[in-house]
């Protein structure tokens, strides 16, 4: 067998650039130049209250707007990654902080994303007085909140499940904690983290679009971007411009997938721990180009091994540290623990008090009515998920059982899940206005417009993973029709369906804030619910009500997760696991 020789490139041979290098060089430099140009515009002067800089409805400006949107996404992604590496590591390794950091993440995951925007935008603006940077920061922060919690959770899970033998090997050979992190623990977490980043970014487009044009009380902000262009188009009722915006977004997502995620996923393959080769490994034309280049390949290798290199430069090589086994006296240990717990308890009490004083201006019956609004949104979410499952489960299973179809439809479904559904809202609203439909019912589908695809592509994945011998056995036994579904297909896709539904449910709650109140020109359609209420209070700048609304929605989501989804998930993991 001829072993792969990526390493031979670096062993003292003369590396003259080849044609692949040239192509790759221009590609990389072009992207860097574009990013630099775009980000220079981010710090333009800005005074609150004015909608500067004004947007142009000319579609020729769209590529530039798209670039700005992409930069926001990129910045948020970098922040999320930094957050993930620190937060998850602390949560997994610090005995005292871990117990509070993990549940905190769980709560953060259930806070409606756009709620963060309503609450923080004025703060960010005052942080950078006289510059648009504050607004940019608020927008980036929103995208950050849509990604960071998931990513940190995924990485935390990985850190907690590093195989015991790998950990022991690292200890036996005396790796320092720093080296251990970069050589053993971080690589182990790469594949799930990359997958999570991909999912988070695809959810993130929705929030970029939503956060580019927002009004909080007196503050009305428009950032140049595809989302704000769309807002302008809606305002001017310009169907042509809407079409251009949709096309641009589609192109952006396509490029992101091809230039960023495919190479990343293909690269992450090598970090998989299963030591057997499974199926067809993911491929990327871009990664192929880069591994074929000589110079770029070398550069890439350098970047890839940078953490390890740095680790070696800056940590003094030393003899194996003999672990000092001088444990702190147990009573002192217990006192410190007690002190910590007391601090946490005090902080929690302070938080409760703060929340209470903030919300106490609202009379109790109104608080109860907010819970009522929550029930209305809950009803919508539930009905929508049920309807979407009824539609997509049969379709997804049909597609999944046919490998040829599955490989074709799967990327389309993933693309649709990434496409920010809020860009489609105007199209639907035009129809509702035109046919004079009841907004209480007909705005509801908007909530699930973007998130239904999670159900579809998870069902496809689940159906194509049903082992062939089970299908053959079913055929052999003559199972067909409803019996086949009940005995094989539905149980077979159950775990994937639950995963899809959990993702879709979270997304649908988030979407309710923009989907229960939509406008077309001067017309605004409102459906009764918690989402529209939060949107309205945000417009009015009514902070106590915003906080109350966010808190209530978080309570709903947390309860739903704990009491319903987690149980289903457990059932899927035990009873319906196929392996």
């Amino acid at each position: 067998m001829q072993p792969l020789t990526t390493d031979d490139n670096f062993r003292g041979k003369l590396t003259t650039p080849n044609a692949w290098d040239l192509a790759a060089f221009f590609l990389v430099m072009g992207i860097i130049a574009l990013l630099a140009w775009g980000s220079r515009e981010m710090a333009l002067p800005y005074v609150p209250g004015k909608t500067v800089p004004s947007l142009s409805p000319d579609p020729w400006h769209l590529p530039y707007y798209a670039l700005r949107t992409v930069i926001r996404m990129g910045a948020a992604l970098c922040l999320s990654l930094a957050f993930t590496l620190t937060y998850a590591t602390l949560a997994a390794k610090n005995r005292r902080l871990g117990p509070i950091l993990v549940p905190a993440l769980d709560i953060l995951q259930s806070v409606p994303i756009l709620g963060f925007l309503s609450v923080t935008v004025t703060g960010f603006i005052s942080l950078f007085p006289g510059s648009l940077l504050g607004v940019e920061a608020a927008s980036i922060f929103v995208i950050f909140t849509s990604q960071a919690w998931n990513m940190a959770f995924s990485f935390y899970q990985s850190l907690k499940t590093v195989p015991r033998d790998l950990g022991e090997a690292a200890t036996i050979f005396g790796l320092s904690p720093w080296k251990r992190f970069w050589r053993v623990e971080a690589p182990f977490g790469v594949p799930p983290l990359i997958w999570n980043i991909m999912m988070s970014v695809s959810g993130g487009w929705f929030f970029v679009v939503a956060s580019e044009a927002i009004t909080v009380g007196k503050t009305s902000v428009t950032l140049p971007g595809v989302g704000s262009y769309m807002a302008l188009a809606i305002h001017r009722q310009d169907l042509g411009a809407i079409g251009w915006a949709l096309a641009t977004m589609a192109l952006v997502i396509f490029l992101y997938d091809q230039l960023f995620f495919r190479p990343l996923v293909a690269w992450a393959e090598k970090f998989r721990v299963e030591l057997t080769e499974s199926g067809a490994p993911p491929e990327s034309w871009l990664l192929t180009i880069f591994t074929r280049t000589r110079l770029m390949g070398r550069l890439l290798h350098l970047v890839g091994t940078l953490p390890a290199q740095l680790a070696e430069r800056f940590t003094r090589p030393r003899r194996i540290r003999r672990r000092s086994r001088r444990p702190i006296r147990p009573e002192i240990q217990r006192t410190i623990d007690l002190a910590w717990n007391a601090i946490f308890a005090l902080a929690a009490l302070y938080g409760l008090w703060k929340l209470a004083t903030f919300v106490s201006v609202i009379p109790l019956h109104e608080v109860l009515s907010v819970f009522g609004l929550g029930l209305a949104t809950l009803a919508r979410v539930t009905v929508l998920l049920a309807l979407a499952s009824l539609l997509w489960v049969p379709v997804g299973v049909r597609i999944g059982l046919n490998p040829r179809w599955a490989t074709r439809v799967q990327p389309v479904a993933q693309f649709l899940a990434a496409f920010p559904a809020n860009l489609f809202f105007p199209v639907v609203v035009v129809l509702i206005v035109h046919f004079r439909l009841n907004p209480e019912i007909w705005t509801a589908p908007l909530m699930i417009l973007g998130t239904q695809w999670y159900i579809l592509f998870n069902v496809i994945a689940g159906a194509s993973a049903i082992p062939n011998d089970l299908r053959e056995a079913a055929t052999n036994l003559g199972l067909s029709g409803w019996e086949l579904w009940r005995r094989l297909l539905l149980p077979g896709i159950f775990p994937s369906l639950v995963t899809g539904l959990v993702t879709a449910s979270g997304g649908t709650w988030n979407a309710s804030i923009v989907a229960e109140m939509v406008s077309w020109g001067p017309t605004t359609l409102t459906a009764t619910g918690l989402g529209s209420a939060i949107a309205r209070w945000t417009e009015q700048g009514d902070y106590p009500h915003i906080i109350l609304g966010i808190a209530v929605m978080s309570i709903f989501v947390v309860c739903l997760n704990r009491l319903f989804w987690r149980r289903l998930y457990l059932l899927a993991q035990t009873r319906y696991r196929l392996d």
Partner: protein
Amino acid sequence: MTTSASAELLRLDSIRKSYRKTEGDEHLVLDGVALAVGEGEIVALLGRSGSGKSTLLRIISGLVAPGGGTVSYGGKPVTGPVEGVAMVFQTFALMPWLTVLENVELGLLARRVPAAERRRRALEAIDLIGLDGFESAFPKELSGGMRQRVGFARALVVEPDLLLMDEPFSALDVLTAETLRTDLIELWIERRIPTRGIILVSHNIEESVLLADRIVILGSSPGRIVAEVPVHLPHPRDREAPAFRKLVDDVYALMTERPRGVTRPEGVPLGHRLPDASVSRLTGLIDALAREPYRGRADLPEIADDQGLSVDHLFPLLEALEILGFARVEAGDVELTPSGKSFAEADILRQKEIFAEHLVRRVSLAAHIRRVLDERPGNRAPEERFLRELEDYLSEDEAQRVLRVVIEWGRNAEIFAYDESAGVLSLENPVEGEE
């Protein structure tokens, strides 16, 4: 090299290790283990699963701290991972994201070795172990045998004085394992590696006799040394030689010997650690024993070889047969009892009846469960109820394991039924077993 132990490499004194059970209760894994390993010696630690042999190896390596007693290496006490001690793992423990070369270099990373020398030494180790040409391959491209060679190279590259091996051949197929054993012993005999001592954890008796200069046999619960067998055969050893066979027989006999004063179990009390033995395997073994050429009595190494059973699998089965009164083990032989013979001759339904009868009569836990279910209104009880009772005698994990075993036996004998998702035991559809 002198085969007699000249200088002392490692010394263990009255090692104890226990794992904390609920509320301060402790579950003893190792008790009073004393052992010395000399220069130029290969020592095999042999024992059934649950004898704490892997724990003992981890204490020696400094991965786990002993609960009591001392480990000293080269005269100094061991308090953590020690330079000069390397380990080979049963599961290889290779980093899948590093190439073969990078995996081997990992062992040198933490030491004061400059990059160039690191590379040179790693390449040498790869050469030595026969991995030439695979330097830049990733572990997933290699077969199991080649992966374990990487494991060996990674351990040998640090030029350890003491090499620890945790069942290094048990995840490999028979042929591959044999090749690797031969290669290792050649390196050792020809002194091409600077290693001065090897400790091998094994549950394979033949492997231990093949490799070791001394076999240390560990008994179970708590783990302690029950016997030491020196092996004076010269390398390379011939598995078919009478002296070799004799040693294997002796070790089998030692491993099945009961401590003095313990009589043959006539039924076992509630908190007894029931061995991991599935009913289908038990039935298979009884059938095999009853057939030609054994006709009710067999030599242990022979039947183990015949049935393709390692010690880890054979001994729990034997113990279960003794508990249930279907067989007796004595001096390296196993013999079916009269009820064992009638079990073998019965048809499936009758076998179930015999099994149920013996189970209720000889295993108190099974009888207890049956009695509780009989008395309870609705004839149902949650498994936690019995788990809690067992935890008076056993650790949490062990209680769970024992309950799993008795449930498997009881379901097969149809003396009670079990709903796994609800965790409920009941008398729902037991056909037989009414008293």
